[in-house]
């Protein structure tokens, strides 16, 4: 699939033309993903390898961040609740905040930084060192081997990481609550599960799938279309992170509207 390129004479202005051409190429890239993902060869081994790289290797950073978010958020929320004599509502408040928004958002933003940049840089470097061309001339579809595998892996692993972050953040929160309010583990989690509905968990998972897909496809797109040598690789990595984060916030906003519409329907 050849890229759309700018005409010598711009239609509106060079910058605006470039924006729309970029948008069209990104759309074609996503369309190609959905066209090719269903058909063999299925690179299961590479998908598993990517799941390991994306999932397992992100665990230390995700654990630390989730834990700290749990502690800090609990600590910062306490004074406001205590003012109304509602400090006992802390587990409910924290669980709703973490499961509905903080967990998916924090995990996705960290993954966009860690995984998105790494995918952008890896594929970008393969592009500028002609490794992608080498696959094509060997009659191997690089899109299937590189893009589809990585995007599937991020789409599968981000929800798993989000569940893990939720759990670690709740543990962090519990430690803080336990120290201050002397609440036991079972009481804490009873309150947590009473506050959280099926819609909260389900919407959080669906949102995480979308975040994962975004991180994977953006990283791959930026890497796949990088140029200008090593400078291009750096730019691809950077653009992957910036674009992924931007899209994640937009998606979070949209998800909030959709879930609220369902909740209050």
């Amino acid at each position, binding site marked *: 699939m*050849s890229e759309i390129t700018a005409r010598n004479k711009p239609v509106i202005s060079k910058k605006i033309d470039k924006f729309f051409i970029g948008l069209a190429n990104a759309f074609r890239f996503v369309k190609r993903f959905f066209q090719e993902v269903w058909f063999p060869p299925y690179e299961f081994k590479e998908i598993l390898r990517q799941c390991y790289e994306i999932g397992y290797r992100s665990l230390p950073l995700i654990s630390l961040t989730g834990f700290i978010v749990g502690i800090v958020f609990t600590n910062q929320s306490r004074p406001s609740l205590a003012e109304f004599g509602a400090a006992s509502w802390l587990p409910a408040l924290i669980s709703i905040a973490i499961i509905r928004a903080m967990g998916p958002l924090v995990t996705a933003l960290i993954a966009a930084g860690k995984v998105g940049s790494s995918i952008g840089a890896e594929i970008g470097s*393969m592009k500028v*060192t002609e490794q992608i*061309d*080498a696959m*094509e*001339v*060997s*009659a*191997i579809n690089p899109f299937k081997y590189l893009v589809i595998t990585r995007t599937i892996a991020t789409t599968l692993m981000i929800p798993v990481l989000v569940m893990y972050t939720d759990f670690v953040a709740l543990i962090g929160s519990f430690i803080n609550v336990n120290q201050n309010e002397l609440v036991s583990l079972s009481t804490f989690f009873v309150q947590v599960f009473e506050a959280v509905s099926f819609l909260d968990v389900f919407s959080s998972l669906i949102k995480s799938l979308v975040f994962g897909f975004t991180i994977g496809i953006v990283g791959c797109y930026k890497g796949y279309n990088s140029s200008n040598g090593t400078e291009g690789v750096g730019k691809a990595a950077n653009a992957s992170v910036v674009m992924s984060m931007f899209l994640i916030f937009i998606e979070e906003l949209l998800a909030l509207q959709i879930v609220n519409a369902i909740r209050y329907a």
Partner: protein
Amino acid sequence: MHNEEISKVVEINGLKKSFDENHVLRGVDLDLYKSENLVVLGKSGSGKSVLIKLMVGLLKQDEGTIKILGKDTSNLTLKELNKLRLKIGFAFQASALYDSMTVRENLEFPLTRNIKNLTRKEINMKVEGLLDSVGLPKTINQMPAELSGGQKKRIGIARTLILEPEIMLYDEPTAGLDPTTCIDINNLINQVREEYNTASIVITHDLTCAKVTGDRMAVLIEGQFEAIGTFDEVFTNASDPKIKSFYDYNFIK
């Protein structure tokens, strides 16, 4: 004439390619015959690499036709093009070895993706045999980052040979190598022709490489072939000042 037509493995006519305002190829005609080593010479940016990238479908021509093994590449579907690509080996300038794979995996990758039902024993025999023939059997479990420039070139050539191509395309095979390694690579190019009976196009601006490996030379200047013939025909007593200056630069530098 009839025999000549049969033995032609590549036939290029009126090939044109531009990048925006930069007209890289301005109507190139070229034939490659069976078992022949043809060297395409030219300065950097003269369109040598573009020419072979057009041949394997990495780029699309603006005008002209490329016939490889009797098939016009512009009329092929992706599936047909991929089938044809299996008969063409492309050795990249920077080797293009897959960084995340060992040497063994680099060689196995095109083989296992394109030839199904091979046993582990058959794969091992092929990989080890090829590494033996390029003189690097001990590198089998090494990563590309651990190899020298010359070793990478050899492994890159071995990887293209694993599918037993009928045509080899070498993009600047001696670029960036020391003189001794250049000699090794030149010998390897000749050895590949003898062992695999391939027809080859060697892209280079290195006249020593051209002289050692080439049966015929084709000099690409400003998007067109200025001279095609044997080394002596093209360079000895060259009257064209552009070709003369190219020759003088290479041997006086």
